């Protein structure tokens, strides 16, 4: 089975929609008798995979209408739990050495690569053609590797030694902003990794609201993160109604910044207004082309500059 096989691929499954993997996608006949074991798509909070405390789910369908899975429909309480987990993880994660964060992110890329076939499968279920899905997964893995390498270079590129007019040593270093709320774009894998990786590589932790129509790859990404030595709570992923969850993230007083990448234009204003309550840093939607060169913008949007002075003397 060429598409889904290989190391890390989905196990071969039965023939028809009843038996398939992602929502019963028909795949090659290998064992007429065996019924596939489907996955329950849950939330990812503090390194664990709970269902929504609300008990709610919503059906996720393929573009042509075929049922794929019931995703958890997260609630305000889930947002709060996720923010709590992200805050708890912040001290430890931001305190890691950049080299260590870089290695862990690279490890995530290794795990992503290992699940290549599964992601291709999920992206095809979400409506991408076979080649496009494969290219998308390739790009997502490469994007993650690109960001992983920034971990131990940001300090040099975004920091400085400042030539003040006096006998002082003065230097500026970039530091992570804290807990970042991320409303992910609808590009279900490449867009998702393009907003998550730049937030965490510098030491931030985050709460991500996954694409509402195509949340399944986000849950699979959570499984990758859970098996990559990434400490629990660094990335928390919620699925559900974007319009319900984003305002709670925007108004939460323990969230320091917001990435509104996946927010429709008309909702940007109200979310920015809510974010002003504790002066969150807000990255407005940029209409990003996720395939192109990303630049450093998404990295620097969630950095603070700290400047330290000390006298020079004997």
């Amino acid at each position: 089975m060429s598409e889904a096989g290989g190391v890390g691929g989905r196990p071969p499954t039965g023939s028809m929609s009843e038996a398939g993997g992602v929502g019963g996608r028909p795949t090659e006949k290998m064992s007429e008798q065996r019924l596939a074991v489907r996955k329950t798509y849950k939330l990812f909070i503090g390194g664990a995979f709970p269902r929504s405390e609300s008990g709610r789910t919503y059906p996720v369908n393929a573009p042509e209408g075929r049922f794929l899975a019931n995703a958890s429909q997260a609630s305000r309480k889930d947002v709060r739990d996720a923010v709590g987990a992200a805050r708890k993880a912040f001290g430890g994660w931001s305190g890691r050495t950049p080299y260590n964060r870089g290695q862990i992110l690279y490890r995530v890329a290794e795990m992503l690569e290992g699940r290549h076939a599964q992601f291709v499968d999920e992206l095809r279920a979400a409506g991408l053609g076979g080649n496009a899905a494969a290219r998308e997964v390739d790009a997502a893995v490469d994007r993650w590797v690109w960001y992983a390498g920034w971990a131990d270079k940001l300090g040099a590129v975004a920091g400085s030694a400042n030539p003040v007019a006096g006998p002082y040593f003065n230097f500026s270093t970039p530091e992570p902003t804290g807990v970042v709320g991320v409303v992910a774009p609808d590009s279900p894998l490449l867009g998702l990794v393009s907003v998550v990786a730049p937030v965490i590589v510098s030491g931030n932790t985050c709460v991500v609201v996954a694409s509402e129509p195509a949340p399944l790859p986000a849950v699979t990404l959570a499984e990758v993160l859970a098996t990559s030595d990434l400490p629990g709570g660094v990335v928390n992923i919620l699925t559900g109604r974007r319009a319900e969850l984003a305002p709670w993230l925007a108004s939460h007083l323990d969230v320091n910044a917001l990435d509104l990448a996946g927010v429709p234009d008309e909702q940007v204003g109200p979310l920015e207004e809510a974010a002003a309550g504790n002066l969150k840093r807000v990255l407005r939607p940029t209409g990003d082309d996720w395939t192109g060169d990303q630049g450093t913008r998404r990295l620097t949007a969630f950095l603070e500059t700290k400047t330290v002075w000390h006298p020079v003397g004997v």
Partner: protein
Amino acid sequence: MNFDYAPAPESASIVDIRPSYGLFIDGEFTDPADGRSFKSVNPATEEVLAEIAEAGAEDVDRAVAAARAAYENVWGPMPGRERAKYLYRIARLIQERSRELAILESIDNGKPIRESRDVDLPLVAAHFFYHAGWADKLSYAGYGPDPRPLGVAAQVIPWNFPLLMLAWKIAPALACGNTVVLKPAETTPLTALVFADICRQADLPKGVVNIVTGAGETGRLLVEHDGVDKVAFTGSTEVGKQIARSVAGTRKKLTLELGGKAANVVFDDAPLDQAVEGVVNGIFFNQGHVCCAGSRLLVHEPIAEELLDRLKARMATLRVGDPLDKNTDVGAINSAAQLEKIRMLSQVGEREGAQRWSPPCELPDRGYWFAPTLFTGVAQSHRIAREEIFGPVLSVLTFRTPDEAVAKANNTPYGLSAGVWTEKGSRILWMAERLRAGVVWANTYNKFDPTSPFGGYKESGFGREGGRHGLEAYLNV
């Protein structure tokens, strides 16, 4: 020992305050459309200094239109090397007129002449000189090969460092190719109006800098104006949040430099005499009207008693009085309203159970004055430990371990600055890593430089002013 000082007043003869001032729009001083005005008062004497025009909606429209035209026709297209020369000119004119400006600043604001002359004005000139050099080097600033300006910048500044805040706002905006409409604070507009005259002396093209005077309503009209591309505000966190709400959903780029409640942390191995000087400078510099003031003193328990004794002795030598006297350490509180706020929060401090102390201190009969004050027995829950007082009032708390110092220092929604006093280098760096604040002064306090990025974490705002980092606020990146 008794120190007596004869009066040493700086002569104000170099300053020529006109009875009334108009708005500086499109290179001309003009009257406001509806003819309204307000008064600027000398806070040390309560005398009216001048009638100042109050800009309304029509005036703000005109100022923004003038800035837009100047941006599109002159300043935007101008090569960076030419913009640079204008800024160098302005820097030189400020140096030439620095004594006049320092005296005027002290008269209008109430700050001691020693500070306006030796701190504010040298920094103002340095800020223009520094940013002048960036104007033709922006391609090397790390924002891509050809970073573009934003357009028209709306800038609203506070009354604590009137001309210095003007420099922090206007110099980088102009260097990056933007034009500006700036509103100075209603209690301290005079040096901004002399700056307008300096722009004319520099032959700066009309409309590149516009100064609209007024109070909060004028500021609101300016930052909410559809014709501005950038909003920069320095002031209270409360107003900063209002501005952030009003900018929500627009194209405007926003930077905010807001309040603070900085911890100044003194360890038991600190050089005590230097630490005492640093603590005094941290909270009594500029009457404590400093957003980054070290208003919470965190003392290591083993030395708390000794440090407080020395601190009280030092506070008893502070001279409070005439801002124009060259011996004055602490000048006048900027306004009656601010004095009322300081009094109110100090009374709350007593009511909540902290112990209040001030040295014997004779205050002048007229004007707005507040004696240097410290509170001991302060708990973290007290309002004087949580709220920005913006006056010469220090809250003293103690700690036992470095972890406790960090936890207490960071226990605030603010994050503008912090101080650390210890002889142990590794401890300085350990503390500096953990303090959630934009500026950390180690074995020094309240130092500023145009090459050094300044700005806050958390609710102290976002964006930086100064250094390479400060350029980002005025570039389309």
